[in-house]
């Protein structure tokens, strides 16, 4: 069970959080101008990497803030968490 560092509250148990999937998928600004393929890409396509994954978490039973985490999907190690809007750390960073 993970121990997750909420950038607002500090280290907390996984049970306080819920995962919200891949991060940094910006919603297109002019959606009407997108082709169906482009819209589908935004809506459904995911990188789903085996390894470093940038993902959103919600501190649901805490500050109720969303934040981002850089987590390895094999070892489950979280190498960084950062606030929404902050620059993601590079993947290799420990």
């Amino acid at each position, binding site marked *: *069970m993970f121990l997750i560092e909420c950038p607002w509250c500090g280290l907390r148990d996984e049970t306080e959080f819920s*995962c919200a999937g891949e991060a940094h998928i910006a919603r297109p600004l002019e959606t009407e101008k997108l082709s169906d393929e482009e819209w589908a890409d935004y809506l459904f396509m995911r990188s789903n990497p*085996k390894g470093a994954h940038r993902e959103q978490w919600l501190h649901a039973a805490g500050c109720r803030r969303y934040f981002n985490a850089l987590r390895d*999907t094999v070892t489950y190690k979280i190498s960084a968490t950062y606030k929404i809007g902050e620059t993601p750390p590079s993947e290799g960073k420990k």
Partner: protein
Amino acid sequence: MSKYSIFSLVRNAISYHENWAAAWRSPEPKQEYDALIIGGGGHGLATAYYLAKEHGMTNIAVLEKGWIGGGNTGRNTTIVRSNYLWDESAHLYEKSMQLWEGLSQDLNYNVMFSQRGVYNLGHNLQDMRDIQRRVNANRLNGIDGHVVSPEEIKRAIPEINIDQGCRYPILGASFQPRGGVARHDAVAWGFARGADRYGVDIIQNCEVTAIRQENGAVTGVETTRGRINAKKIGVVVAGHCSVLAEMAGFRMPIESHPLQALVSEPIKPIINTVIMSNAVHGYISQSDKGDLVIGAGIDGYNGYGQRGSFPTIEHTVAAICEMFPIFKRVRMNRQWGGIVDTAPDACPIIGNTPVEGLYFNCGWGTGGFKATPGSGWVFAHNVATGEPHELNRPFSLDRFVTGFLIDEHGAAGVAH
């Protein structure tokens, strides 16, 4: 290769079982095949088997990075049923069910398909509406099943708690008599042996590291055992389809999540059917060996680690004890995890890809085992002809562009 039967067993017993042939050969990979199947799980092996049997393609190979059946085939809770809501799913799973019903004989390998029936429980009024809707649809699609009352459930499963005092009392269930369980490993081995008998090369410890293409068409793969050429490649790698898609240069609408399961110590027969509850998140049956086999819910994060988080197990066991309070003193022997590839509509993706000659069969989520023969059967058609079979046409990748989703979980909320 000898046929398996009681007679061959006796004959071999006399010779101290020294003359059994290998169930499948372990050949060195050739440089080129007519088709390659990447992934030696149940679905991949079934695909190879039906490619050979139904389409006469025998110069083919199955490439498995580890040992066959080592992924979700050997990690699931072995439930087989076909009572899906939407026509598209129902037809596909029912095809699979029909193949299951003769599979041991077809493969000459006892996969122990046990049609002991499957109950899908309802715990609130909306569950019951959904159950009615699904059972009605099933019947019109020619799939057996009926709605049963709590009292009927209690008669069939005396150990279950239908007490209205529990948190989410059981209000009824759908029952599919033809549903049941099978011996998961045997399915992989049976298909492997069957395919091997047609001359299919099953190559283990052979991990694909790159997919080669020219002018938008596949030409072969690089593997840990060298380059292998083929103009048709079927990818059937539950738990790793995004990884293979990335090799081929596209993305999939898939997320890979941990799914956990657990077994009790072996006990004498007590559960003679399969009970699934989506509302309280617990699925239970009993293996022929005597273990209670219990499926847990999916973990919310992406994970390739073949393990999930403890609270999921905790909650699942609570759900089982809620349904079966007598099991509190039975002990959990072992727990484990698999990797399930889930699509947004909880339905598989079977068909062509942006790369010519490259076909994907993935996204079975938590429910792939039951589809093993049917999945292989339709995918073999797709790989052999280059075009989807009518049964898998609705499950194409482009449904995510057109919006033609088959929303099994959105609709009936039925667990796989």
